[in-house]
């Protein structure tokens, strides 16, 4: 048994332990933190499987932003779950066991883990790995697949994120004058001198790192999704430490909403430009006389669109969540 197998086994056992702990724990704050740990463990597992791009996304979204959004939500809803009258754990257990058994039964038909002969390795993957450098001309094959070969799918993902932002806005926007509630965890942060100073040191670095991830996605792990989340987290940090009203002065709400739509539009309009040049939708080789150069331009543009939309939608969601019950920003 080699070292990699041991590490995989340890990581997967820790995943199971964390999942059981999430189910069993009653404190929802702890459950949210454990969900973050679950995300981090999955990210480590993805690194072990050499899927660094996915690991990066999982670490920034699964362990970072979603934990934060869950905690913000919990600040609204309360720390412990209310057990309602129709609480039937037995039925749920039977259902879960049944589903699990079916899933395990399903795996019996699957090829063995890591076999080279698996269908997924024989369909389009060899083409991507062998030809993508010649066709797209960027070293990171994952970005080639995500942004160019599967550009339409990624467009769909961006639209999903945009729709989520619109949904949150539609549901929570009317709460401009929220009723005063008890203090949230962020409220007590206002006097924290050390935190504020360190945050001031870190925020420029976080923004810089976001830009690096955004524009380095063609050469290493990264891209618009991760960059957007990292960029948005700098704004979250600022608004948590300096208050929501201070943060609203930095990020104009109207501008953010327009930018969220502009990101999707930028992505889509790259596709339209390809169409008008007589190529397929999102075929970037139409963007320049040189096909490979066109691919470069297209990927840069659509990644920028992804980054803008993800950043702004995350900011919209966070502000909508924390604006809902936070008055203490005005107390500042």
């Amino acid at each position: 048994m080699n070292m990699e197998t041991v590490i995989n086994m340890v990581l997967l056992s820790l995943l199971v332990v964390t999942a059981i702990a999430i189910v069993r724990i009653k404190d929802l704050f702890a459950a949210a933190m454990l969900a973050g740990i679950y995300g981090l463990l999955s990210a480590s597992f993805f690194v072990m499987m050499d899927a660094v791009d996915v690991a990066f996304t999982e670490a920034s979204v699964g362990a970072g932003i979603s934990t934060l959004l869950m905690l913000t939500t919990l600040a609204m809803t309360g720390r412990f779950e209310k057990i309602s009258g129709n609480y039937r754990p037995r039925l749920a257990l039977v259902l879960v066991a049944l589903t699990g058994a079916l899933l395990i039964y399903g795996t019996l038909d699957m090829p063995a883990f890591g076999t080279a002969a698996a269908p997924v390795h024989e369909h389009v993957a060899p083409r991507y790995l062998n030809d993508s450098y010649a066709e797209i001309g960027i070293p990171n094959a994952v970005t080639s697949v995500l942004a160019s070969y599967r550009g339409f799918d990624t467009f769909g993902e961006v639209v999903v994120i945009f729709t989520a932002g619109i949904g949150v806005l539609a549901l929570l926007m009317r709460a401009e004058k929220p009723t005063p509630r008890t203090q949230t965890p962020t409220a007590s942060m206002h006097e924290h001198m050390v935190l504020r100073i360190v945050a001031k040191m870190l925020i420029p670095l976080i923004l810089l790192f976001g830009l690096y991830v955004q524009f380095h996605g063609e050469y290493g792990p990264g891209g618009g999704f991760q960059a957007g989340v990292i960029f948005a987290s700098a704004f979250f940090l600022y608004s948590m430490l300096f208050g929501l009203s201070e943060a609203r002065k930095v990020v104009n709400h109207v501008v953010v909403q327009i930018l969220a739509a502009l990101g999707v539009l930028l992505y889509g309009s790259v596709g339209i430009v390809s169409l008008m040049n007589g190529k397929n939708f999102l075929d970037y080789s139409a963007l320049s006389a040189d096909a490979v150069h066109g691919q470069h331009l297209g990927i840069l543009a659509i990644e920028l669109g992804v980054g803008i939309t993800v950043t702004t939608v995350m900011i919209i969601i966070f502000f909508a969540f924390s604006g809902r019950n936070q008055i203490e920003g005005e107390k500042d």
Partner: protein
Amino acid sequence: MTILTTYISWTFLVLGGFLCISGAVGLLRFPDFFTRMHAASVTDTLATALIILGLLLQTDAWMVQVKLVMVLVFVLLTSPTASHALAKAALHGGLKPQLKIARGSNKAGQQSEAEA
């Protein structure tokens, strides 16, 4: 890489690993929140810093070294701040450090007093 740098590097790595384990033991064995947090923050800062220093000596690629130094700076900035925020939040929430040893002679009691 010479023999000397290998030795120094592994000294750092083993020390860092030891501090990780001792931090975990402290986290489980120490009597109250603040002492446990102290153990965890040692793992966060010193152990991580030592491991990164050890890794720095393992590579000759300067690009990797620059990135490791950046990670080191980031960790040294954020980990103590996180511990500080945690301790302050606990104090703010009304949790007092435990000043007396409840029962048995636990070595951690001294740290609890020092923290107070």
